[in-house]
């Protein structure tokens, strides 16, 4: 049971306060909390669950905004954290993105949303589809509408249809002029590669994202060509579990709009699409560095947005780095970022240069690790393939679209 929720800006200012129970939580708790953050130097370093002298605090940080919840009673910590994350998701969904100004401009909507999401400390609904029917988002359309119709309320006058429907995530009488549904496979590759090039760990976390604009109460079935490669799956509440258990078929009535149908993990992949080979050698106070990047395993589609990032060790005084392709930037916090983009056909990109070490230090005694990011459109690297998507209960033939995307998640190369 949560007692109070605060929204703090990135300077620690209380932007919003929502008391949930009869017990009033004093604002001074935020000052205490902010002191903790300052003592840690960074809000990301502070534990998500901490005990203050009077309350237990849960915090979630999104885009510089801290969502802080207080309670005095025992409760499942994950429930509080999940809830705060959902609040953040819903707000960024409503406001387009999340930042201090947006929240301050729309604080009434934020209050309204919180009012419907949690009552007396217990979460009610966080399903964006339902919320959107109760509280209209502050978008341009509704502003125009209100001017045209003269109805200034940004809130629909009827109750959400979903509250009376048998499918709680969807209202019954949806109508779309064009019926369309898009299914995206979005995968992230997490990998750790050792300094001798060996793959320490490589796995894929993937999501099936659906964007549905379908009229009526459609019934969808989605099947995969090779569901056996999935290690563990989690579903949106709309997925019926029996057909999955029996035949690994996803059968569901979709909510309207965008949602995450399923997430999965694929373990023990054998190779990565690109290689990154850093080499460091140091001698009498300077360190030579060279990093080679190239395609290891051609995925068949072009790999773009390749960047390699690493943090210069604290003992490096200065660095002089250059690349034969792409741009190298060294930021104020000693992060060095090499953006390559696409790998050209005619040469292998390489970056090289020298780093001057602190006086008294002969050779570099720490290892840095290189974070690699890339993006491949059109391929799901796990090899997961959609077999077919069937739609039933539809007045007209819908348009179906499929896409796939793989990007690097935590892709780390050690030197």
């Amino acid at each position, binding site marked *: 049971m949560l007692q109070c929720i605060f929204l703090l800006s990135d300077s620690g200012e209380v932007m919003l306060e929502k008391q949930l129970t009869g017990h009033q939580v004093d604002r001074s708790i935020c000052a205490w909390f902010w002191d903790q953050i300052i003592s840690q130097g960074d809000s990301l370093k502070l534990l*998500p669950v901490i005990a203050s002298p009077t309350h237990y605090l849960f915090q979630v940080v999104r885009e510089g905004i801290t969502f802080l919840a207080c309670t005095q009673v025992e409760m499942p910590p994950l429930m509080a954290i999940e809830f705060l994350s959902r609040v953040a998701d819903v707000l960024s969904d409503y406001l387009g993105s999340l930042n201090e100004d947006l929240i301050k401009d729309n604080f009434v909507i934020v209050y*309204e949303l919180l009012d419907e999401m949690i009552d007396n400390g217990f979460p009610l609904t966080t399903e964006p589809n339902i919320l959107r029917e109760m509280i209209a988002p502050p978008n341009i359309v509704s502003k125009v509408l209100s001017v045209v119709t003269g109805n200034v309320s940004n809130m629909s006058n009827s109750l959400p249809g979903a509250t009376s429907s048998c499918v709680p995530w969807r209202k019954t009488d949806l109508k779309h002029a064009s019926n369309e549904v898009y299914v995206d496979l979005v995968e992230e590759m997490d990998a750790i590669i050792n300094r001798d090039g060996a793959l320490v760990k490589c796995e894929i976390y993937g999501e099936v994202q659906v964007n549905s604009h379908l009229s009526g109460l459609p019934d969808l079935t989605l099947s995969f060509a090779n569901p056996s490669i999935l290690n563990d799956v989690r579903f949106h*509440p709309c997925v019926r579990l029996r057909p999955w258990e029996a035949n690994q078929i996803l059968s569901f009535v979709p909510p309207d709009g965008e949602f995450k149908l399923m997430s999965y993990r694929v373990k023990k992949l054998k190779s990565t699409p690109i290689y990154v080979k850093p080499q460091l050698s140091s001698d009498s106070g300077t360190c030579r560095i060279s990093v080679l990047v190239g395609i290891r395993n051609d995925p068949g589609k072009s790999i773009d947005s390749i960047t390699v990032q690493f943090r210069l060790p604290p003992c490096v005084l200065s660095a002089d780095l250059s690349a034969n392709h792409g741009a190298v930037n060294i930021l104020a916090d000693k992060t060095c970022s090499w953006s390559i983009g696409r790998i050209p056909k005619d040469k292998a990109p390489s970056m090289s240069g020298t780093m001057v070490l602190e006086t008294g230090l002969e050779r570099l005694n720490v*290892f840095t690790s290189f974070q690699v990011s890339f993006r491949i459109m059109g391929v799901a690297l796990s090899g997961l393939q959609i077999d077919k998507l069937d739609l039933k209960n539809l007045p007209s033939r819908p348009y179906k679209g499929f896409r796939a995307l793989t990007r690097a998640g935590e892709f780390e190369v050690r030197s």
Partner: protein
Amino acid sequence: MAPPAQSQKSASPSQPSGKGEVSDVKMQLRQLAGSRSPGTDDAKRELFKKVISYMTIGIDVSSVFSEMVMCSATSDIVLKKMCYLYVGNYAKYNPDLALLTINFLQRDCKDEDPMIRGLALRSLCSLRVANLVEYLVGPLGTGLKDGNSYVRMVAAVGVLKLYHISASTCMDADFPAMLKHLMLNDKDAQVVANCLTSLQEIWGLEASASEEAARERETLLSKPVIYYFLNRIKEFSEWAQCIVLELVAKYVPSDSNEIFDVMNLLEDRLQHANGAVVLATIKMFLQLTLSMTDVHQQVYERIKAPLLTLVSSGSPEQSYAVLSHLHLLVMRAPFIFSSDYKHFYCQYNEPFYVKKLKLEMLTAVANESNTYDIVTELCEYAANVDIPMARESIRAVGKIALQQYDVNAIVDRLLQFLEMEKEHVTAETLVLVKDLLRKYPQWSHDCIAVVGNISSKNVQEPKAKAALIWMLGEYAQDMQDAPYILESLIENWDEEHSAEVRLHLLTAIMKCFLRRPPETQKALGAALAAGLADFHQDVHDRALFYYRLLKYNVTVAERVVDPPKQAVSVFADTQSSEIKDRIFDEFNSLSVVYQKPSYMFTDKEHRGPFAFSEELGNLSIDTELADNVVPAQRVEANDKDLLLSTSEKEDNHGASNNSSAYNAPSYDGSRMVGASQAQQDLVSLDQPPPANVPVSLAIDDLLGLGLPVVPSPAPSPPALKLNAKAVLDPNSFQQKWRQLPLAASQEISMNPQGVSALSSPQVLLRHMQGHSIHCIASGGQAPNFKFFFFAQKEDEPSTYLVECVINSSTCKAQLKIKADDQSTSQAFSALFESALSKFGLP
């Protein structure tokens, strides 16, 4: 929305002071109040927004209350919402003005739009003004019967709000019975869920006062109700599912078939997208199968994948919450996770708190087949730029070395660390090498060769320095220049700020002297002289003690200071298994995140109906503090194995100096078998063993040896008689509890009949009263109850205080007894136990 009393009027210079603006707004609102011209609503809306934004930044706008209420006659729903928000915030502090709002809220409760009815009812219940409750009963009653589920849903929570404002009004209006009816019959799942949360809380709080409520609370856990919820589980929203699962976890199925039915029904919840649901389900599975060992293990296998997916899917905050639970499971059953060790590899970008948990798990799952990989991975971290991370990983390598029998490769790695020539790495490694040598003396040859090359000048951290000095003393005969290194350290005695290091220096030079007297004699003299002049009491005493010992007899001194040592087989665990079990019982709660059972930290919890529950909290904090300082606590240290101290007080002790396992050994010698020998000698050395028992008891206490309890030579005390009409007011109880040392602490098993009779704390209170033991405070819910008892001697005002924590699921009771008269505490303890054991028997 700070309440007016604490509003930050001048929180920052950039914020408007408020005064002028507020009166401005007040004027404008007053002008608008009566107006009906078109566009009024827009103007009002702007003003309301302004008022609420002032409220949000903490300016006190309570002065416009009446104007706000006057303007609230509107059909615009956003205006209404803003007004509700405002009223809800200030009504509590302006009860007189709040009366103004009742009228329009009651009218809105009859609006034809269900949304407005619901919102108005919610605001009405959120006013929380005690003298307005009479106006709540009517709208709530109609709200519960409303045709629209949204209104019923709001009303169900409203009942709980009413209960907190005025419990008697709520009970008199018979709302709980109406809620129960709704809960079992409403077709809307959210209404059902809200009824459940309200009823759980109301009956939970009422249970202590009324038998009926206690019975009702029991029926919530009865088979038909539980099955009703289980059958509807898929209708509930994800959050309501968490609440239902929490309830079901308290249900005790009658046989194993039922357990399997429940588990089969809920298995698909493990694939839910919401992590909170998954974790609640896992908790249920674990609790249900506790008694079935092999199924329990299968459950672990089954929940492994969902947990690992949860870790990798969410944000760092979610990962952390899941990881702390995973951590608990890994610690309980490392072998099940040993093939998944790669999941615990740390990523460079992860926050330190996540990495730390992962390191502990890596340490736990290490076994013969994966140790090589894990240690290789850990060595990567040791060279990490992040210093705390590097330290933790070296410690992890050390822990693995202490767990494994084949430490060959690991020792080599550790020694490589020493060659990295980084101060923090060297420091950590030295501490570890010292621990390794205590366990595996056979490695001394290899280690000493490397350690000998380390210049003591490069070691600055006290712990590391102490470890190095210990090794110099312990292996003085193997290290050529040990006496000279020690000598140079002694020359810089005054620059050594850490008392710990100076203590070690004294002991090391003694050992060195006993082995290589001619080379060390001069240094020893200097050390003893410096030690005697030391301002630190312990250092001074140790120097004096060595000096007298040497004067008395050098061979005795050798037996005391440098006896042959036995290798340490197991280092003290930092947490007792009993505590771990208790945390496990509280799976999916804050306990897991803090790695402490809730009774150790949830003192802020409002606990039961007793008025001074706050003080209860203070009490138990104080006990822990007291435990740390009172030496008597050591008496009850486990006497089976001196190395394994499992009492929880030890943990606190360990926690306070951060890593008891890594203290350099000599003062901790009390924990080592060899040293205990020495200390017994010490007793006999001192004086002829004193005949009077209290002194010898005191010595045992001081040494903390936990020797088998000295048989009490005093004539057994006369049977203790207690005063049946003892009185003690809570304040003096609290004071005494804080002052008195702990006389006894034990865990006893209760008979199952007794535990099953313990439906609410009250039953036990009455029972104990029959034995002249009175309760001063009690609280908790099944399965954990906590009581504070007191009793007085019949003939004199000597008081006994007891803290008793009963876990009804494990049938265990934990007692902490304090007494004015320590000598009779044993007798009292026995009396208390016998009284407790009779509980529940006919």
